[in-house]
């Protein structure tokens, strides 16, 4: 009984104190994400070695000359890892950009147009979402060839379906509110309503979803590259580094550990940012 009382007191104090400071998760996530971004930026002006340069012995462990050692061909692992950060961010950002732009437009169109267009779009989105994104990516790669662009297009299209469905549902909810009716009766046009009422109410939810989808896209691109269906050399992604290092994991474990750790840092970072944003925008979910 005392425990019950304590639990109840907790919920009461939680409801009373909706603090709006930046959550710790978002801060940690932003730092992790920042590390990868900085490494990617630095890779444009400084690399320890040209990533494709062969020399310095094969499969050497970490040393002063090669911070993370070398791969089976004698290439510097740290340099390849730094270039991989660019690929991972490009894949995530590219797919997210396609998904966000196309998805929001499609979702708005569905929510604002006649019933039959809306129904048709909703059915297509349902089918697209049922089609797993990795398979869609494999299909596009089979048709267009294994390039980074193929991967970005495929993952972006898969994300479009998710974003469009979300946008459609939320926009309809916003459109049915009384303040939109008020805006309409006072003569605000469609674009005025979108700009002034729909987008500002939509973007908090959208930001959370996009952050999560960014991480998923990075993981999917790594999977494709690991399967040999991603960007071809010399633009080695972290996935293809892992593919190469797998055969020599026993003799040179660093090569098989470092790219995985890099992936975890990036994806964990974006996931934490997403969680933090959700906490920030939705105080009722703070204790989750």
């Amino acid at each position, binding site marked *: 009984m005392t425990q019950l009382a304590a639990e109840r007191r907790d919920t009461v104090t939680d409801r009373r104190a909706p603090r709006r400071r930046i959550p710790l998760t978002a801060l940690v996530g932003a730092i992790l994400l920042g590390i990868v971004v900085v490494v990617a930026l630095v890779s444009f002006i400084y690399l320890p070695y040209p990533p494709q340069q062969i020399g310095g012995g094969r499969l050497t462990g970490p040393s002063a000359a090669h911070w993370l050692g070398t791969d089976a061909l004698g290439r510097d692992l740290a340099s390849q890892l730094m270039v991989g950060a660019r690929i991972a961010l490009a894949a995530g950002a590219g797919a997210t950009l396609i998904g966000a732009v196309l998805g929001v437009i499609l979702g708005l169109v569905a929510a604002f147009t006649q019933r039959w267009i809306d129904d048709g779009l909703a059915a297509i989105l349902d089918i697209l979402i049922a089609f797993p994104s990795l398979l869609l990516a494999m*299909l596009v790669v089979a048709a267009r060839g294994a390039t980074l662009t193929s991967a970005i297009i495929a993952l972006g299209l898969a994300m479009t379906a998710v974003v469009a469905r979300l946008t459609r549902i939320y926009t309809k909810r916003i459109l049915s509110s009384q303040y939109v009716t008020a805006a309409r009766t006072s003569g605000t046009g469609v674009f005025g309503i979108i700009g002034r009422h729909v987008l500002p109410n939509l973007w908090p939810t959208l930001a959370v979803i996009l952050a999560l989808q960014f991480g998923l896209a990075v993981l999917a691109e790594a*999977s494709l590259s690991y399967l040999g269906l991603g960007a071809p050399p010399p633009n080695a992604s972290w996935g293809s580094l892992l593919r190469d290092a797998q055969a020599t994991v026993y003799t040179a474990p660093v090569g098989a550990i470092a790219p995985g750790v890099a992936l975890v840092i990036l994806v964990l970072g974006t996931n934490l940012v997403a969680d933090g944003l959700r906490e920030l925008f939705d105080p009722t979910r703070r204790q989750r």
Partner: protein
Amino acid sequence: MLAYVLRRAVFLVVSLAAAAVLTFVLLRLLPGDPANALTSVGATPEQIAAARRAIGSDQPLPQQFVTWFGSMVRFDMGTSFISGLEVGPELLQRLSVTLPLTLIAFAVAILIAGPVGFVAARYSRSWVGLVFSAVAQFGIAVPVFWVGILLVWGFSLGWRLLPPSGIPTDGWSDPAGMLRFLVLPVATIAIVMSASLTRYVRSACLDVIGSGYLTNFRALGASFGSAFWHHGVKSVAVPLTSVLGIELATTFLGAVVVENVFALPGLGSLIVTGIAQHDYPTIQGVLLITTLLVLIVGFLADFTQKMLDPRLRGTLI
């Protein structure tokens, strides 16, 4: 009820047809002739023409589509460009690896996630809940194939406990041997899947634990365990079934990737070699059977959820 099943069946068939059309259009409308995959570099024009006749790519595209769609409807997946074997039986053979791998890994993941998610929710305000949340965060950020590589490194190469790759030559006629080879792939998928499942279980349990009716039963004198067992478990199960459907599909795709880590002869390795060799019938076959499985799982999840929740039964029309 009957109308609901019929409607879902129509959705399933339409989705499958859409996936089939999408697959066909994307693979055939893009530049490049599939006959190139059949002939070696430097083949004479006659050889290429013969190859085109053999696979029918000399016909106009609409004609090709009708022929192909007709055979699809009769469950004839065509023959592989590369091996010359029929795709249908090959797919069934590969499924006998991928399907058990998926289902066993999924079952293990649920067995881990159920209790862990419950404990994480029950003690969400203590350090126990915090530790669980942190571990789960790592779990959903980890690439599944990397876990596989690390497990091979630790348990096969370092410790020499388990085989690193492949399956026994006898396949399933040697069940014990087969299972031994599946331990690491199953562990790989289960570790990653249980992380995301734990989060869903925890979230569903938190909703129930914070609900008014559970507090009510406790106020009436029921212990927490009794109140949760008699009144909470079903409420947890309802939102979880729809999630489980999606997660089962994700597990299946995880299996497709993980098979390549462990060189298992399943659907995953089949489609990767198929793409590398431009073997269109094989690619189409794998994509279609995968889509079909994902759709069926989605249907079953939706149906189970409506069966479990009386409030949703009204929508079974």
